[in-house]
């Protein structure tokens, strides 16, 4: 029997993203979200307790135990179903985390609830890129590449100009592009490779070394600078190491002050919920927004996708099945 709690839980199933503040472990974020969802789901108004009919003998009807027998029927609530005795209806809610963020970084963190966890594992396997903003500072080098670590070296940075920085970034981007082509396992001289490159589908499948698909400098005010990165299979420590290596290439030193993820797949900063909005109702709104945007993304997709290219990758199989189904419906509506 569906209770109001279960109906609310069904509406909470899906994917959504939150903004993880810096300095907080991702596990605490997940636990806090689970607690607030539990309070929301268990807070729905309870149904009245089931009643049971009990027959009680009338006192004083026959004290000598004689033939007169009067019983009265009373409908009493079954206390064993009371939430104070059997506990709240939901004691755990399965909340899973997508690509993790370490405690130093901040940014978009994708979470899934209930049935959405299956979509989350598919999402995890797709070769979607992630956008990061890295803020660095010249002049120091530390042991863990961040400004909170132990200082290992100090150096001057007066000789660094934007032109030199751009040259270093271009060199890094070239090296990463070479790695991308190498990991994508396609013969570079084939037509297939050209078509995939045109569509931007070149990339490693599954696990590989971290690859930066795009890298550019958005702000340069020595000693501070800001980089924007699109990457695959990365970790936040690797990104801080990239900043450190940029400093070394420029014959100085650099530390990373902020690592901020601005996009994870289709989830952007705009959809992310700050910690003031980690309540059940706000999360429900975010999940419903995700479901409706998923439908919008599917319908224009079916006309443009070429089914031959979609043969690679496990998740693409499901997508092609869905696209076939929606193609049929589109054809039927046209007719």
């Amino acid at each position, binding site marked *: 029997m569906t209770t109001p709690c279960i109906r609310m839980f069904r509406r909470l199933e899906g994917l959504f993203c939150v903004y993880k*503040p810096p300095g907080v472990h991702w596990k605490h974020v997940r636990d806090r979200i689970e607690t607030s969802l539990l309070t929301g789901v268990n807070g729905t108004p309870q149904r009245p307790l089931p009643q049971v009919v009990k027959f009680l*003998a009338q006192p004083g009807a026959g004290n000598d*135990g004689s033939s007169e027998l009067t019983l009265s029927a009373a409908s009493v609530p079954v206390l064993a179903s009371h939430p104070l*005795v059997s506990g709240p209806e939901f004691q755990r809610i399965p909340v899973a985390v997508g690509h993790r963020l370490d405690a130093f970084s901040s940014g978009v963190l994708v979470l899934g609830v209930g049935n959405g966890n299956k979509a989350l594992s598919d999402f995890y396997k797709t070769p979607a890129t992630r956008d990061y903003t890295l803020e660095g500072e010249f002049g120091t080098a530390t042991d863990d590449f961040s400004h909170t670590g132990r200082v290992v070296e100090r150096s001057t940075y007066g000789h660094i100009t934007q032109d030199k920085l751009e040259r270093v970034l271009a060199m890094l981007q070239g090296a990463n592009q070479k790695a991308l082509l190498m990991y994508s396992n396609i013969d570079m001289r084939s037509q297939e490779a050209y078509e995939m490159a045109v569509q931007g589908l070149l990339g490693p499948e599954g696990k590989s070394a971290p690859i930066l698909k795009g890298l550019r400098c958005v702000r340069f005010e020595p000693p501070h600078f800001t980089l924007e990165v699109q990457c695959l299979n990365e970790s936040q420590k690797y990104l801080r190491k990239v900043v450190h290596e940029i400093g070394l290439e420029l014959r100085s030193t650099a530390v990373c002050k902020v690592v901020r993820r601005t996009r994870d797949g289709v989830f952007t900063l705009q959809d992310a919920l700050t910690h003031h909005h980690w309540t059940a109702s706000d999360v429900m709104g975010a999940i419903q927004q995700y479901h409706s945007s998923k439908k919008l993304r599917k319908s224009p997709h079916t006309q443009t996708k070429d089914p031959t290219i979609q043969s690679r990758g496990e998740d693409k199989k499901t997508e092609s099945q869905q696209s076939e189904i929606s193609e049929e419906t589109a054809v039927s509506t046209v007719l």
Partner: protein
Amino acid sequence: MSIVSLMLLAAMASSCIQLCCRRCSGLLRSKITVQYSTQAQHCTAVLTASSRVSNGSSFLAGICAASHTRQRWRQQMCFYSEHKAKPLTAEANRYKDAEELSGSDVVAYKNRLQNATDSLPVTDSQVTLDVDAAKSLSALEEISDEEAVSISVPSALPPATTSLRDYVDKSETLSKLVQLGVNLWKLEQRPNVGSMLLKLDFQTDVAPRLLFLKDIGVEDSRLGYILSTNPFILSEDLENLRTRVNYLRSMKFSSETVASMVSRAPYLLNFSVKRLDNRLAFYQQQLGLSTWKTRDVVARLPRLLCGSLEPVKENLKVCQIELGFKENEIQHIVVTVPKVLTANKKKLTQIFDYLHNTMKLPHHLIVKFPQVLNAKYLRIKERHLFLQYLGKAQYDPTQPSYVSLDRLVTLPDDTFCTDVASATLQDFHLFLKTL
């Protein structure tokens, strides 16, 4: 999860007896009590001689010798008192098969019956009941209303279980506790609390203590919370409770204060007078406060009297050595915000480090607004960075456009944004996404 111990069986049997007696009070009182008392004797015999009773076959033989028409329910009550699970099912099988016996096997079974007292448990399934009695018991036979009432269905109360759910409808104590608002589900997870609650009798144990709490001024709505947090108050001696309340009153705590202290720190009255005295003396001595101020601090945070003193001593040392506050500054902080004494040391040092080294606040300003030490670190950080971004992070009272620390920390988000930062709440949330 805790397992309700089998020691409660005696209590359960006696409470069952009481319940059934109360229900059928008007009728057959004498008959039922006699029957139940014999059953109780059987039960106690089982419990004491449990080692000697091997699988209950001799036990059954003892019952069969009586060959009463009411064997059926009596045996089943005794089945539930048998504490070994395997023979229980074996007995049940034996009993079920015995009912289907035909008359031709009577002689053979009677012989077996005589041998059963000396022999080991008989393993084959058709045995050891008086078949004459079994034959006369038919489900379709007409019986009078009195007999119908006296055949009470044996309640399916399990002898041992991990949850109080199975007993709550039958036990008066548990139903009354649920009606008061006690969270039985939380309590049964604590070891031994479930069995303790079951063994209590409402009229003699629970009711006098609840009335005592009401007398000292605790409100009815708080009784559920107090019992959920501290169920052991029901097993505490009433005289001790009265002595402790009198001691607190002798230390010049008013009646309302004592009531509020008990409702906010439910474990308070479980501690001896000596321990309470010890703690009050410690706070007065260590903090160097007057009696009135000590009383005020303890009245506002009564759990200071309940917990251990070691964390408090460490916190005081942290404030003195690590944070660098002077004696009179610590006194002022504790009197304004007593929670600092029980705060987490790491969090306290983290907040202080941010306030002093990043926000560049001097000691005397922090002492002036001790509430900041009680606030959440993330909150202080976000609000400070927002004000810094807007260029309004000015905490020095001598300079213009001064922002006081208590307004920084205690105001709710929307008031903070409009009054202090002169920005909208959406701007604040957008700014948070850039950190």
